[in-house]
């Protein structure tokens, strides 16, 4: 299932960024294309776009969908993963520390295993748009941060694809330090800010 969108850029090979380019990314270039956006507002448009009746949920079942899915995700959550049910979507927050080595966008093995489990649930609850956002703290070059966070988000996306999640459902964005969670003046706060947020947005019909 592919989403046809505009104003998006396919992932480019950025040689200048060294480590960021991982095996997964190369695989992505070869096989699947995951949509990357640079502005959150584009997400809204993506959420509304689907016409295929098989891919959407009726409005009166959305709440149920989110509730049950949250329970499933919570049941498999582990160290470094937090599942949060928000008003109209589910957010899974992966700790940057647990997921990647410093400066790298290569996934740690444990996180990979967890993503595999997440993928199972995601495939069961397939009427979702999966928006992966990479976030960093405020230290260092902002452009570098944006690139790194995007790279990391893509890495997560690619791994999900390798676990048989349809690439067309995935949307990736690098936020840099634009949306901090914690206080950047403390190490604790900075650690909190370095994260990946996977948002599961149900595709609702008739909206």
């Amino acid at each position: 299932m592919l989403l046809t969108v505009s104003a998006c850029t396919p992932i480019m090979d950025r040689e200048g960024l060294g480590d960021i380019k991982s095996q997964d990314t190369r695989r992505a270039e070869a096989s699947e294309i995951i949509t990357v956006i640079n502005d959150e507002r584009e997400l809204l448009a993506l959420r509304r776009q689907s016409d295929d009746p098989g891919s959407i949920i009726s409005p009166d079942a959305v709440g149920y969908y989110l509730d049950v899915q949250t329970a499933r995700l919570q049941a498999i959550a582990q160290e470094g993963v937090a599942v949060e049910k928000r008003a109209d979507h589910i957010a899974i927050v992966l700790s940057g520390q647990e997921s990647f080595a410093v400066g790298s966008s290569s996934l740690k093995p444990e996180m990979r295993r967890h993503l595999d489990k997440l993928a199972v649930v995601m495939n069961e609850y397939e009427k979702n748009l999966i928006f992966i956002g990479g976030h960093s703290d405020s230290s260092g070059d902002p452009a570098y941060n944006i690139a790194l966070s995007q790279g990391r988000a893509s890495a997560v996306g690619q791994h999900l694809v390798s676990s048989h999640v349809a690439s067309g459902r995935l949307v990736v964005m690098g936020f840099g330090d634009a949306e901090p969670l914690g206080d950047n003046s403390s190490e604790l706060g900075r650690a909190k800010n370095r994260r990946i947020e996977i948002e599961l947005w149900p595709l609702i019909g008739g909206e």
Partner: protein
Amino acid sequence: MIVLLIAMAGVLGLISALGWYAWQKSVGAEEKRLSTLAEQLGQRAESILTDSRTLLEDLNNNTAQPCSQSHIKRMQTEAIARPYIRAIGYWRAVERRCGVGFIQGAALTPPKASKIYPNGVVAWWPGPETAVGDSELFIMRLGDHDLAIDPRLLINRSLASEQRAGLWVEGLLMATSPTNAQLPAPDTLTPGLTIDREQDTLVARFSLDTVFPMDVVAEQSSRSFLARYSTTLLTATILGILLMTLWALVVRALSKRHLSLIGELRSALEHEGIEAVYQPIINLETGRCCGAEVLARWQRVNGETIRPDIFIPLAEQHHLIGAVTRCMLQHTLRDCGELLRDNPDLTINLNLSPLDLEDNAIAEALDVELTRAGLPPSAIKLEITERGLLDHEGCRELISTLRQRGHRIAIDDFGTGYSSLSYLESFELDTLKLDKAFVDAIETHAVTSSVIPHIIEMARSLKLDMVAEGIESEHQARWLTSNGVHMGQGYLYSKPLGAADFIKYLSES
């Protein structure tokens, strides 16, 4: 009369005490009943919910092909075994693929879960979104299976008609019985039993916090408790009143007889119903009659004879003894007046009650009657019991007065009181009458037979004559004479005689 009232008050008090005790026990039993109800409901609800969660886990672990025959059969078996389960379903995301209980296609997908547990259980509390037909169900989902419970069946214990109960799980109301009952929320109550005086209710709260935190609140009206026990109380009260009435009637009947007897006695006294009989006193050496003791006899209108040992105490109780004594005096003087005038040595013994010694009435009566009869005081000897002397110390003076007039005084039933030698000495006495008990003992070798010589000795040292009472055998008579007792009376010589018979007896002896 006072005695009767006090007794009745006592019985009433006893019944009240019993009643209060029974009430307290009943109240306690009632409270315990309610607490136990709350506890049992709570425990049952808990076991149901725990079992349900385990069931979902088991179904998820089931390796059978989803929605295969065996899978559905398994769900069916489990649902049937639990009457509170309305449906079991197998899901993929928001699609109910198969299941048992609901009509095909009727899948419940309530928009907002009541609780999502970290272990993966999602629960929906009963509400409009979980209604099937007219029942609002409680739904639990774990993994791909869910089940729907009818909460009314969580409180399936039949409550008494005035009892209400409610079940809260996680602080949210799950079920009430009856369905629309309004119950106070558990967090407004202290655990255990509360008595709400304002609303006249008894409320019990029982809390559990093992798997799911739950509270059971059971309530019942105190008034209803009264209603329930009022029949018992009423019956007990009526029974109590009946018993009391019965008892009162019995007492009244008895006292009526008692009272009527007094009335009769009074009447007999007025109308010559009391008669005098005379038991001859014999000189033991000569065998001749030297006097008599006058005794009262009462024959009732129905022919029944009442013995003196019954009606004399009765008379004494009701202040009629004075009249009886006077009556005896009058009879004596009338029957034996001529006899006494003709035989100056003859004396008739008149019994005085201790009550007679309390005032001058009898002294005056003696004076008046004897004067009228033209007889000296020496003709009437007065018999006073030893006990009477002991109980009425103040009669010393009266006795002295009577003696000075010329009456002889005899101490009657001697040996049955506790008087000492010095005590006796302090009175002016003439004769000592030896009680029948001592005379009887002469026949046997009873301990009292060894006392008699001492009594005789004592009488002699006090210079008192002796008259032995109740002589029934020659042997007794011989013993007495040989021991210095000169006079006696008893069946050996004669039983008490009517006036005419006595006169005849006297003339013959």
